[in-house]
Each structure stands twice: as C-alpha cells, then as structure tokens.
C-alpha cells in the first residue's frame, strides 16, 4: 500500500491515497481518479469579500436539491452514512449529502465555518468497484478519509503541490492561468503588477540534446535581450533584464514588462527542467526569485 500524498492547489490541501491521481479540471475543480477511473470530484467556491451572498445562495440551492438528505440526519446516530463520513462534521458545516449506495453518498456540499469556502463533491465509487470488483464501502471510506483531511485556511504558505512538483509562494500571488500539456506544465501567477510563471519541462535529457539551458531559458522568457549569468550552482542558470530609463519607457509603450528575472534548473534525478520567470513594470524585489526557486522542486 502506497503512502498518502499531499495535494495542494489554489488554496486547498488534502491527503489522498498514493495510488490516486489528481487532475485539474478548472482552477477550483479537482478530479481524483484511480486506474484511469474517476473516484471523486471536488469543486470549491472561495468567498470573496464583496460577494458573500453568492456562496450563501449556492449553498442554499445545493441544500434544496431534490435528492439531498437533510444535514442533521447525516450526522445523527440513526444516519445511514458510514462513520467515516461523520468526520467531516468536526471541521465543516455539512449542508447536505445526496443519496448513495452502501453508506457512501453520491455527492454533497459542505462549507468551512471559518473562511466560508463552499465545497461541493461528487463520488463515483460504484464505477471502479464494478471494474475492479472492489468494495464500494472501502472505496467510499477512502474518499471520506481524503475529504476529512481537507483544509482551506490558516496555511503558512501558498502551496501548489500536484502531479510530481511542489511550489510554495509568498502570500499575495493569485493563480491566473495553467496548462498541463504533454512535457510542459505551466502555471502563471500575479501579485499586483508582478507576474510569475513557473514551468516544468520533461524529459530534460531529450531537450538538452538539442538546446542548452540558456537557450531554453531564452525561448521560455521570449526576451531577446535577456542577459544570462551563471548561478554558481551546477545544472542551473539565470537571466535578467534591467533596462535603462529610455529602454524602460520604450518597453512600457509596447505594453511589455521591462524588468525580468528568470531562472532554470535541471533536476537530473527526475529528468526535469524547472523554470521560473518573474517580470514586472517596476524593479523586482532582489530576494524574491531565489526565495521561490528554493521551494520549487520535484517531489
């Protein structure tokens, strides 16, 4: 049996069994699957300061759905749900569970009483049980235990940990875009006028046969006047653009961010290239990129 894996994405964290795979379907929508069969999908709605009514409206709409069971009965001793599902109630306010099989709900909604994040999940344990002659109850229990580890607030760092990489960001960075293309994973973040792009390229040996690290970094940043310098570490290099005032104005007129700092590293053990590109219209904080780069790794 594989150990549990921590998954962190866009403000939430949870532990899932090691043989499960997490897939990003949307910025706030994860699908967990085993043996290419979906087991659980989880959506969440983070409450923004301006629209608390929106999540309340969603919660009310979910609770009103016809096949939903009253939350109180879900938590009571007479409830049909397995005990593992009641663990959720210690952390979250369970709004509703929908009818399911073998003490496993087919879906449900719950919200965090502290940060008011609203979660909505759907389970598919019967599909995998049918294919692998597995036990619905056991799969349902694993799903319930994974959901019980869910956390959505009071994190020390903004962690992104999915597939095989881990990236920790200082507070203030928001996920803007992402892509999980074959051989190139890219995440884009924004913090005020700063932009950060984290990319993971694979397989590194194939790419390094054709191009050097500096050439790959130049292609990634798409900045022709990027100045490359050695980092002092083996298997990595850095590039930067710190233009003079006239060039700065010219770049601003072209709606280009004048200040760029980028770094690429080769992880020979995992055969991956990890790159970070930080850009902004004002001078970049000196220690920011090395601080982020220190947390970006293959796990």
């Amino acid at each position: 049996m594989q150990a549990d894996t921590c998954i962190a994405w866009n403000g939430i964290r949870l532990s899932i069994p090691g043989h499960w795979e997490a897939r990003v379907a949307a910025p706030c929508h994860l699908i967990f699957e085993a043996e290419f069969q979906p087991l659980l999908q989880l959506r969440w709605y983070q409450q923004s300061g301006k629209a608390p009514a929106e999540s309340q409206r969603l919660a009310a709409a979910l609770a009103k759905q016809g096949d939903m069971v009253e939350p109180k009965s879900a938590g009571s001793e007479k409830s049909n749900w397995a005990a593992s599902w009641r663990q959720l109630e210690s952390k979250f306010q369970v709004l509703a569970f929908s009818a399911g099989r073998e003490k496993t709900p087919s879906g449900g909604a719950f919200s965090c009483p502290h940060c008011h994040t609203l979660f909505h999940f759907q389970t598919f344990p019967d599909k995998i049980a049918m294919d692998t002659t597995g036990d619905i109850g056991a799969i349902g229990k694993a799903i319930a235990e994974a959901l019980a580890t869910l956390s959505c607030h009071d994190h020390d760092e903004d962690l992104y940990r999915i597939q095989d990489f881990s990236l920790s960001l200082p507070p203030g960075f928001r996920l803007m875009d992402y892509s999980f293309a074959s051989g190139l994973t890219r995440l884009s973040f924004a913090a005020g006028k700063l932009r950060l792009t984290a990319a993971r390229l694979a397989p590194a040996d194939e790419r390094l046969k054709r191009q050097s690290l500096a050439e790959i970094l130049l292609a990634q940043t798409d900045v022709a006047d990027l100045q490359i310098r050695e980092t002092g570490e083996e298997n990595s290099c850095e590039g930067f653009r710190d233009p003079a005032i006239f060039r700065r104005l010219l770049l601003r007129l072209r709606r280009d961010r004048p200040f760029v700092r980028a770094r690429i590293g080769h992880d020979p053990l995992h055969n991956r290239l990890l790159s970070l590109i930080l850009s902004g219209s004002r001078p970049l904080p000196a220690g920011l990129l090395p601080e982020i780069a220190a947390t970006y790794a293959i796990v």
Partner: protein
Amino acid sequence: MRLFKKKEAKQTLPTRTEALRCIPQKAEAANWRMTGDGDILIEYPLAIRPFFLQLASRFYPKERLPEPTRKLQLDRLGSMVWQMVDGEKNVGTIVTEFSVASGLTLQEAELSVTAFFRQLGRRGLIFMR
C-alpha cells in the same frame, strides 16, 4: 424548413475510460524496421485517389501500376510506444508502461500516447479494437 434535409448521422464517441480500454494494433500494410540509432522507420503505402489511379492505368499496365509509399521516422519516445503496441496491451496499459519507461507522470504520458495514437490512426498505421 427543408423537407428533404439530409439526416445527420449520430456520432457516438467513446468515453475516456472506453478509449483507454481499446487495444491498438499495427496495420498490416505498415512495414517497419529499426534504424541504427534504435529509432523506428515505418514505410506505408500512400492512399491514391481513384482519379489518379485511373489516370495512371492509362500509362502503365495493370500489373506494373506504381505503388508509392511514404516513410515516417519516429523519435526515441515514439519508437518506445510503437514497440509497446503488440495487439494485446490496451491503451491504459501502454500509458502506464510508457510513464514508467520515460519518467513522465501518468497524465503527461496519457496526453503524449493518445496524441501519438491519434496521429498514427490518421495515417492508417494503427487501428483500435
């Protein structure tokens, strides 16, 4: 309203789970060999339109009609997947094995292998059963 409108045939596409259960098989027309670098070179007949075949039949006797072929050189990863196609393993198994062999994650491997099979299928080099 058009009275004699051609009815569109309903296309039922397989789901992802069904597609991953399909077993790819190499087309008999595809001749392949391994080059000195360990890569795979596939030679397959080029499909000629009937009009051009008719035109060619006017210049050549039937038994000497030209049979043009096209060559496709696969890279290291493509060659790895091609060799995994043995008519017994399904796409899911090939994805898992390719993920282990290439060091890619399962999701990356799935994207690469399915895109590769789509390309080969378009050229008539493999078919699914």
